[in-house]
């Protein structure tokens, strides 16, 4: 277990050194969240405050999934993933390291975004501990989603396109702009099946709003289940793909 954690740490570290500033990561993982936040701020600066928790979640979603799309598909294309599988580490350890690297990237981008936002639009986080916990677990869940999408394809553009198939519906159905309770009843089950819904819900609580879907601890548990499920599926697909 200790060896596996060490190996996952070194894989995450190597991914950070190697992939953080690859062009597709800059466009989808860094620029997109900044442009998104700026667009909504310029549209309505006065009533911007309630949107912040949702935009934080979106930034985490795009940062993490973009990183995974690049890290996994690049390494499969170059054969580096196969080399990783020659080391005495399990597929689970390899993907856990990659997911950790993606989560750290998403958190870093979001931290920079929030810091910048604070200077132009001061906001107040009511429960910083819950905010940190929800940001960390959300980043892991989204990163695992990114890994799940990326292990199934061969090219970076395929991974980004497939990721958008998940990301764009989530933007509109997960309570970022429209509360889930205000959605048509037929769409609500779809919202409940999306990890972003729970992420937005807990982040709203950390900013002082009321939970709409589940109590914060339950939402954190649901995000953990999403993380484990996406990681497990990714490992299964990766093993099948390589062999």
């Amino acid at each position: 277990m200790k060896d596996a954690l060490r190996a996952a740490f070194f894989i995450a570290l190597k991914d950070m050194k190697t992939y953080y500033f690859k062009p597709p990561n800059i466009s989808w993982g860094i620029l997109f969240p900044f442009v998104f936040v700026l667009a909504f701020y310029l549209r309505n600066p006065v009533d911007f405050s309630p949107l912040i928790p949702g935009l934080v979640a979106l930034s985490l979603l795009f940062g993490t999934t973009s990183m995974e799309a690049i890290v996994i598909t690049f390494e499969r294309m170059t054969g580096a993933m196969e080399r990783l599988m020659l080391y005495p580490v399990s597929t689970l350890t390899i993907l856990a390291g990659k997911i950790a690297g993606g989560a750290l990237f998403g958190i870093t981008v979001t931290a920079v975004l929030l810091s910048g936002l604070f200077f132009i639009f001061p906001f107040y986080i009511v429960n910083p501990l819950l905010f940190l916990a929800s940001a960390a677990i959300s980043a892991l869940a989204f990163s695992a989603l990114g890994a799940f999408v990326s292990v199934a394809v061969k090219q970076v553009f395929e991974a980004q396109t497939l990721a958008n198939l998940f990301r764009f519906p989530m933007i509109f159905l997960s309570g970022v702009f429209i509360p889930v309770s205000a959605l048509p009843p037929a769409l609500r089950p779809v919202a409940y099946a999306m990890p972003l819904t729970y992420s937005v819900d807990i982040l709203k609580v950390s900013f002082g709003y009321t939970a709409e879907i589940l109590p914060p601890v339950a939402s954190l548990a649901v995000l953990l289940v999403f993380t484990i499920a996406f990681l497990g599926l990714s490992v299964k697909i990766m093993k099948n793909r390589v062999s």
Partner: protein
Amino acid sequence: MDTVIADGLRKNYNNFTALDCVSFSIKRGEVFGLLGPNGAGKTTTIRILSGLLKPTSGNALIMGNDVVKKPVEVKKSIGVVPETSNLYPELTCFDNLVFAGRLYGMRSEKVKTKADELLELFGLKEKRNVLFSKLSSGMKRRLSMAASLIHDPPVLFLDEPTTGLDVMSARALREIIHSLKRRGITILLTTHDIEEADRLCDRIAIIVKGRITVIDTPEALKKSVSAVNPSLEDAFVEITGLKSELMFQEKEGGR
């Protein structure tokens, strides 16, 4: 003692048989060659022995460990140099070696010392802080070999080690293989280059269409054919029954 044992390895992909009952064993410190045209099953054999592929049937043992049942133990005892140099282009030579060592569980100081030793051994000391992407093909292949030796494995697999290299780079790599043999490392190499197999290998298995047709020393293989002053190429053609046109087609139709 046999360090590598393949026993009846078979690999099927739907209706295609990539390997058909492949069996051989390699003694400690021996250089063993798998010689055959492209698509003969050489890389598939290495992928199975290194735990990347599961055989459809048959067994393989490396240093007494079953490749399917104890893959982690097997991976600790082997180094693999794939045909394509697939280290990280964005990392320096030194960082690539350190990363490899870390994944073998080596401690920071030990891995750094070992990385510097290997850079010296492989003539890459001056390229220590150069990005992998900036190296020539020959240097990339040498660094790949260095990375596969970072944990001092007793067994080394080399997949087409000199393919795509210029004459001098190929010669330098062959010298390194000889020096590794002198250090007692067991080497399994695949090649479609008959001259290379003749120069490097203690024993050669000729593999065609997934089946091993013969295993012997290069000298014994040459003696087994009827030509006057036979070369290993004469032996290869006579033993496999492949005509030159067919060999050409095999190469074209290979991976």
